[in-house]
């Protein structure tokens, strides 16, 4: 369960998040939708304790991320890049992350296999393609077999096979009762996998609800998105 309540964030005097409020529930895939720069990553970084909001709370299972003990066993997170130092091998990266949360070394090889990187375990992260980096980042998120997944633009850079795989993986995760929150600016992609949708635009949540509810009378989620955000002068951009 993820609860974000009236989160405000200002960076260099610019308001980037205004009263952002929504929930992501267990057993469902929640899509966090918005154009680039709308505040998706900023919200997720606050949720993960990386940045601090000026006000508001972001809780995971009722607790702020910074207070979680061995957080990887509760939350798996994927942000920009793989998170691995370029000079480190994929396996070495996963092993230090595992050690930091008291997880056995064997988990490193298990998650490498899960994301199809077994053959690249000894390769340095700096030599990875964009798609491989995403897979390594995802492997890191899976180390602690977490009940909550927070993924920022997970399909970016993945090839069609990778996209298909992650779609299936996220659906399975939700069906097993996990809470899945993923951000994307790709509306068609989100419409394929999300149960619930939160639309953010210029730092504000403009609507949230079930996919059908948000799509409403519009033909597609994309139409609904533009209808929701085009009311301001100049349109969504």
């Amino acid at each position, binding site marked *: 369960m993820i609860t974000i309540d009236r989160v405000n964030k200002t960076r260099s005097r610019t308001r980037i998040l205004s009263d952002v409020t929504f929930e992501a529930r267990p057993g469902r895939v929640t899509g966090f939708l918005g154009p680039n720069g709308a505040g998706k990553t900023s919200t997720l*970084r606050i949720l*993960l*304790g*990386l*940045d*601090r909001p000026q006000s508001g709370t972001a809780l995971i299972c009722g607790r702020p*991320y*910074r*207070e*979680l003990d061995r*957080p*990887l066993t509760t*939350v798996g*997170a994927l*942000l*920009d*890049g*793989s*998170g*691995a*130092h*370029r*000079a*480190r*091998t994929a396996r*070495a*990266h996963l*092993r*230090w*992350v595992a*050690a*930091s*949360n*008291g997880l056995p070394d064997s988990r490193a090889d298990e998650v490498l296999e899960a994301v199809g990187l077994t053959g690249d375990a000894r390769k340095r*992260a*700096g030599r990875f393609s*964009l798609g491989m*980096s995403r897979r390594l980042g995802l492997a*890191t998120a899976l180390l602690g077999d977490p009940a909550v997944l927070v993924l920022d633009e997970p399909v970016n*850079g993945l090839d069609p096979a990778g996209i298909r795989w992650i779609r299936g993986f996220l659906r399975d995760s939700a069906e097993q009762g996990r809470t899945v929150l993923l951000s994307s600016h790709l509306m068609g992609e989100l419409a394929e996998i999300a149960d619930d949708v939160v639309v953010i635009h210029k730092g504000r949540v403009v609507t949230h609800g079930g996919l059908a509810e948000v799509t409403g009378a519009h033909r597609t989620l994309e139409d609904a998105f533009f209808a929701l955000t085009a009311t301001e002068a100049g349109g969504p951009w």
Partner: protein
Amino acid sequence: MVNLVRAELRKLLSLPTAWVGLVLGTLVAPVIVLLNAPYTRRAIADGTLTDLSDLGLRDLGIGLIGPMVLGVIVVSSEYTSTARDAPGARQLTATLIAVPHRLRLLGAKTTALVLVVAAQAAVTTAATLALTQLLHGAHAPLPAPARIAAAILYWTLTALLAYAITLITRNGIVPLTLLIINSSVVSVSYLLTKVTDLASYLPDIVGAQMFIRGTDFPVEVPPMTAGLVMTAWIVALLAVGAVLFQRRDA
């Protein structure tokens, strides 16, 4: 906490740059002793080198490049970009997601660095002094155990100095360049001692007096005081670094 220290040790030791710092720092001083041996022997025979009490310990200075590299990269590796196509992506994100409690993380990082550098210092000091005994044993008495311990402490504190500065700058290039130039090419701190006696209390200058007996220090500071002054510097810089690290957005 044991898990965190283990993770930080692994993290440090799986970086190729760390091994450059480790190998270089460990080997340089003994190699210099070996290369200088003919010159030192002649100087002793000619009577131009009369104060032999620092022989060996003094040669350790050049090896400080090791702890400096280690101290810097422990922090700077967190901040270097992890990918060409994602310039904002850094290892720090992965680190803080795994260990969100920042002061605990710094505690683990500091411990890992101290363990690695103290071990390195012990090995290189033992090697340097053993070689000195082997080559010039008849003239150079083995320094007292307290001085040897002080040399190891100086190495460790130097690594922590580099670490604390990098924690503040969040970039390894500036502190590493400054520290290496200051310790090898031109010692700005030493030149400053010519201008003002206060410079004698700069961390690198005062710290050396923990174990070097030489007379080229403008202000003579007793070893224990020297150790305390250097430690105070490091505690102060670490405190600033820790407060910034705790407050800044990652």
